């Protein structure tokens, strides 16, 4: 058995979220905007089936803003990819402008926590071989969360996923 490790919202049958940046999707009805925004990387895409199931069970939907490899943080160029910084800035601005009261953050946190460092000029950057400087990551996350809560948003962080030490699909096939 073989899975795609993460599948975009579009491939999972979700509609584009109207009025949102590209590659942002809606679980629920376009006419009644959800009160929840889910923002994150490929872990978010992997969890889309859970949001769809929850919507079917309760009628509560969500806006899904996900981009593989882009953990939900602002002001940081992740993995030397300026695209992440621009994408995250765009999503963050859209969140602040939206009436949603809840923001759910999902990401491969340990990947970025180990690589986010502070430059000599005080700016924050991602380094492939960072110093595992958790405090810099913590400060960046705390600052961003503060901006969300100041605007009246509740923030839910989804904690780390246990890593396995092999590819499950390969083992299953063997």
């Amino acid at each position, binding site marked *: *058995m073989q*899975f*795609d*490790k*993460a599948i975009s919202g579009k491939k999972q049958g979700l509609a584009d979220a109207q009025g949102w940046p590209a590659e942002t999707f809606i679980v629920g009805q376009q006419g009644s905007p959800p009160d*929840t925004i889910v923002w994150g990387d*490929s*872990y978010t895409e*992997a*969890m889309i*089936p*859970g*949001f769809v*199931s*929850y919507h079917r069970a*309760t009628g*509560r939907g969500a806006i899904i803003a996900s981009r593989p490899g882009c953990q939900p943080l602002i002001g940081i160029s992740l993995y030397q990819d300026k695209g992440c910084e621009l994408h995250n800035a765009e999503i963050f601005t859209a969140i602040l402008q939206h009436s949603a009261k*809840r923001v*759910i953050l999902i990401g*491969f*946190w*340990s990947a970025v*926590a*180990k690589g986010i460092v502070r430059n000599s000029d005080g700016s924050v950057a991602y380094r492939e071989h960072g110093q*595992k400087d*958790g405090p810099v*990551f*913590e400060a960046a*996350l*705390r600052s961003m*969360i*503060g901006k969300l*809560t100041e605007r009246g*948003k*509740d*923030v*839910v*962080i*989804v*904690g*780390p*996923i*246990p*890593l*396995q*030490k*092999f*590819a*499950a*699909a390969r*083992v*299953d096939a063997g």
Partner: protein
Amino acid sequence: MTRAEFIEDKATILDIFERMAALPRVRVVYPDKGLCDAQGCRYVENNVPLYSDDHHLSPAGVAKLTGMFATMFVDAPPRASSAALTAIAAPNQKSD
């Protein structure tokens, strides 16, 4: 992976998130609560993989997190303290 290995592997993040959870209007939910037990964090259950690779959950893995999804959508007070939330939202270090 055993639960102890998971907690050791994620110690930095778990410590940071515990401090985040103390902030007003912030909650943290923990997927491992639905994926791990005393025996460890399984990758397969009833011959169905819970992961699609070494760290992305499969749909079957996500289906193990029904309780977590419900918790995420709870309209919690700024500092949630109810037993219902604590069951999934409590930091791992203190729940084991």
